[in-house]
């Protein structure tokens, strides 16, 4: 248990982000640099066929909205299922937060 850090989880997150960024940066420094440009090295992988990259898109925005709804209700179900020992304001607060999140998501306007 940490004793002196104000926001332990944020500190852990920041520290791991810093370490990983450091490794990533070192990797960029020591990696081999390619010479041949325009030889098809930067094309997407294909086993000999011609697969233009522009044709393989999925609708990300729709998927992300579904994923967010799923995430929100998943966590809400978890909170409600484990909250029957706490009678009172806490589960209601959680539910209200979720309700606000869903409302914001519904009326954020970019998907209708």
């Amino acid at each position, binding site marked *: *248990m*940490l*004793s*002196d*850090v104000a926001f*332990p*989880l944020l*500190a*852990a*997150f920041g*520290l*791991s*982000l810093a*370490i*990983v*960024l450091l*490794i*990533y940066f*070192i*990797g*960029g420094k*020591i*990696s*081999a*640099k*390619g010479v041949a440009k325009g030889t098809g*090295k*930067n*094309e*997407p*992988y*294909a*086993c000999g066929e011609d*697969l233009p*990259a*522009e044709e*393989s*898109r*999925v609708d*990300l925005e729709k*998927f*992300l909205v579904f*994923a967010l709804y*799923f*995430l929100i209700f*998943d*966590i809400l*179900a*978890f*909170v409600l*299922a*484990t909250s029957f*020992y706490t009678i009172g304001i806490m589960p209601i607060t959680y539910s209200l937060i979720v309700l606000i999140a869903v409302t914001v998501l519904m009326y954020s306007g970019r998907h209708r």
Partner: protein
Amino acid sequence: MLAYDLFQLIVFPGALFLFCLAFLYEWVDRKFFAKVQNRYGPLYTGTLGLLQPVADFLKLLYKEDLVPKACDRNIFSSVPIVYVVLPLTTLFIIPISGQTGLVAFNGDLIFVMFIFALMTITVFLAGWSSMSRFSIIGSVRSALQMLSYEIPLGLALIGPAIAAKSLSISSIVQWQSANATWGLWLQPIGFGVFFICMLAELELVPFDIPEADTEIVAGWRTEFSGRKLAMFRLGRDLEIVLASALVTSLFLGGAQPLGLIPPVLVFLVKSLFVVIMLSFARALFARFRIDQMIAGMWKYLLPIAILQIILIQLGLGV
């Protein structure tokens, strides 16, 4: 005391220790998997090939970092970093060197579940941003797999939380230690469900549908190379550590002190056992088809998980 806190975060139960653990567990996994198949496994780098995962990681760091020109550059380069940071942050929560996690807080079980869902969304973004057909098929399969295993996983996590009347992993470990029992003996069904869901979450062999290398080249990782692929491998190893640590903490009693043996050693032995079980399952089974996976998860695993919750509510296994 700040210096000691920093030491804890960076060196001992912190980042450096976790990286070493990740490489060690990858070695154990590969060696055991090879032994089951009558092969030798990693052999030359270091004693018994112990340094082979480190060597692989360094080799990938030294390789050229190719970025396909069609891909979404920002997402493509930030996704590998997120993929390592998420399990690394979550591992700080789990009690490893004592009965309380390093940054444990009340309700961190919900946080762990949230991180698992977020990992899959990261995987989806990785495949989507690289604009290759194989990657996109892999990432869509990965999202589909998440939609199937997430509900049984949540139900299996609810079991220990209800039994210990707490949503904190550290309190669940302390509850098991105080009652001198393990979650495994009280909720064997929940343990099985959780184990299967962990196999699906880690995309290990019966559920390696998102990266089925005989169908779609390397799944969502097809376009990644060099340091990005190194990051993905490191993230995968940390995820294996996270899964085994979670199984250990929730169902196998966690880091209990055992006489004079320090809790870290107890934790290491238990989680090594879990890693060996994971790689044994990986060696025994063949890959499921997608429809078999979804039907199995919804038709069989979900009712079993609900049955476990009902049994707990009836007072069995509390």
